[in-house]
């Protein structure tokens, strides 16, 4: 059985960079556009890297800033200063 993790963001300016960074680090992930939101799903694992986000944004970025734009997630969360990881075991 397929076991997808997912994350959904508000479709706003911040999310544009998040999606860009996520796709760079998780090329196999699928992006779904729905009214006012963007949902990204991937098999088993999805990672957001601070380094990629900072590169994309061109500024310092705290992983917890993500809390402002996230709508929902599915999967076990592991967060530290450098990553936000969603996964099923």
């Amino acid at each position, binding site marked *: 059985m*397929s076991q997808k993790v997912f994350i959904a963001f508000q479709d706003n300016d911040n999310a544009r960079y998040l999606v860009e960074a996520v796709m760079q680090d998780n090329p196999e992930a699928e992006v779904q556009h729905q009214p*006012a*939101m963007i949902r990204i799903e991937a098999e088993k694992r999805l990672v957001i890297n601070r380094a990629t986000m900072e590169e994309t944004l061109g500024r310092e970025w705290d992983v917890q800033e993500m809390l402002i*734009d996230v*709508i929902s*997630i599915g999967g076990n*969360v592991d*967060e530290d200063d450098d990553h936000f990881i969603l996964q*099923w075991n």
Partner: protein
Amino acid sequence: MAIKNKKLNLKDKYQYLTRDMAWEPTYQKKEDIYPDEQFEGIKITDWSQWEDPFRLTMDAYWKYQAEKEKKLYAIFDAFAQNNGHQNITDARYVNALKLFLSGVSPLEYAAFQGYARVGRQFSGAGARVACQLQAIDELRHSQTQQHAMSHYNKHFNGLHDAAHQHDRIWFLSVPKSFFDDARSAGPFEFLTAISFSFEYVLTNLLFVPFMSGAAYNGDMATVTFGFSAQSDEARHMTLGLEVIKFILEQHEDNVPIIQRWIDKWFWRGFRLLSLVGMMMDYMLPNKVMSWAEAWEVYYEQNGGALFKDLERYGIRPPKYQDVANAAKNHVSHQAWGTFYQYSQATNFHTWMPEEEEMTWLSEKYPETFDKYYRARFEHWDKEQKEGRRFYNNTLPQLCQVCQIPVIFTEKDDPSVFSHRQIKHEGERYHFCSDGCCDIFKNEPEKYIQAWLPVHQIYQGNCGGADVATVVEKYYHINLGVDNMEYHGSPDHQRWLDIKGLKPLQSNSEKKTAA
């Protein structure tokens, strides 16, 4: 420990500001300080194993919440200043907000009370902090929802007394009793019920596709509070999953207790969400996805992945999940038909779907809509257009547990009501399903006291013997103004005025507002 970095890393900061703020009591026994931690039979051997994956501390919490609020209220202001209510797709949509304000927002407040209470009950500092943050979140949700909808209250009927109505209106006893059941349970059951079963497994179905639908119907205020609340929910959901894993890892004796709670609260939540199903399929003029599709994505797919993950703890998917999965093709139609026929006692308007909406329903529900529901809907539509709008003037039988009328049908035969009946200590009790009947049998003392609105009316406890008196005096609904048929209502009239359309000649003329 010497601090070398100028800035603490996330893990250290969490440790300092959460665990290290707690202390071991010396002159009082722990059992006396946390007297409710034991009685449910959950065994916790090491609270330090509790993980908050977001590692959120108070300072970061205030910072990010303040930012969310600033964004949110800027949008509320813009919405009000620009008469945002005039830009929604159709005033029928506002009825979903009336249901939301009286049915969901009070639950946010109940959740605030619930987390404030259980946060006091855990001897682990990590759990206490997490519950405290969540309590504040829930209070925020309740407030922002009321603020957002106060704008609609200036322009449409039926939004004037939601808190009063939540405690009295017959169908609002469904969400109310759901939360009362959770809040009157012990602290671990409360977390399993609300943090895990509701937040993690089921609230996506309320807040994600419905709020996306609000956006699709031009309601900027609602989508904004919805997604702002949901940004907190993402944290709550994560916590819900961690709570379950933590409890299961602590002791094997916890597994059967948690399984029973998951079975119970999945079923209760699934029943409660029937209301959301009908909001999605019938109350959003522009539709994002059907209830069945939402159920497939957010329960069958996401829930499937979740329960596969929990297998290693000895947890199986909730009992009667198969019944719930089959019901995805029925519940929204059954619920809407119920509200349609008892609309003289609701705080919002109902209507029959228009031609193209019926077509959409047939497409989205190819196996069920035409076969079981279209005939009754077309009959009602015809009756309404001929001036005999159908109302059911006899009160319905209610389920003793979920308190929903016994409207659901059998999984294997959707033309037959699902009804269960037992005798307990000489009294007869009736249920909508095996799921609800099992919940009763596990804790009969809890449910024999249920305040069932239909029975309360018949006992004479709701201000009068006839529907009009109960509705007006006890529910505070303006009969025929706030409720009943949408077409020809003052709200409908106001909408036509807003859109500069001519008033209808009669009920038989089809409206063309768009």
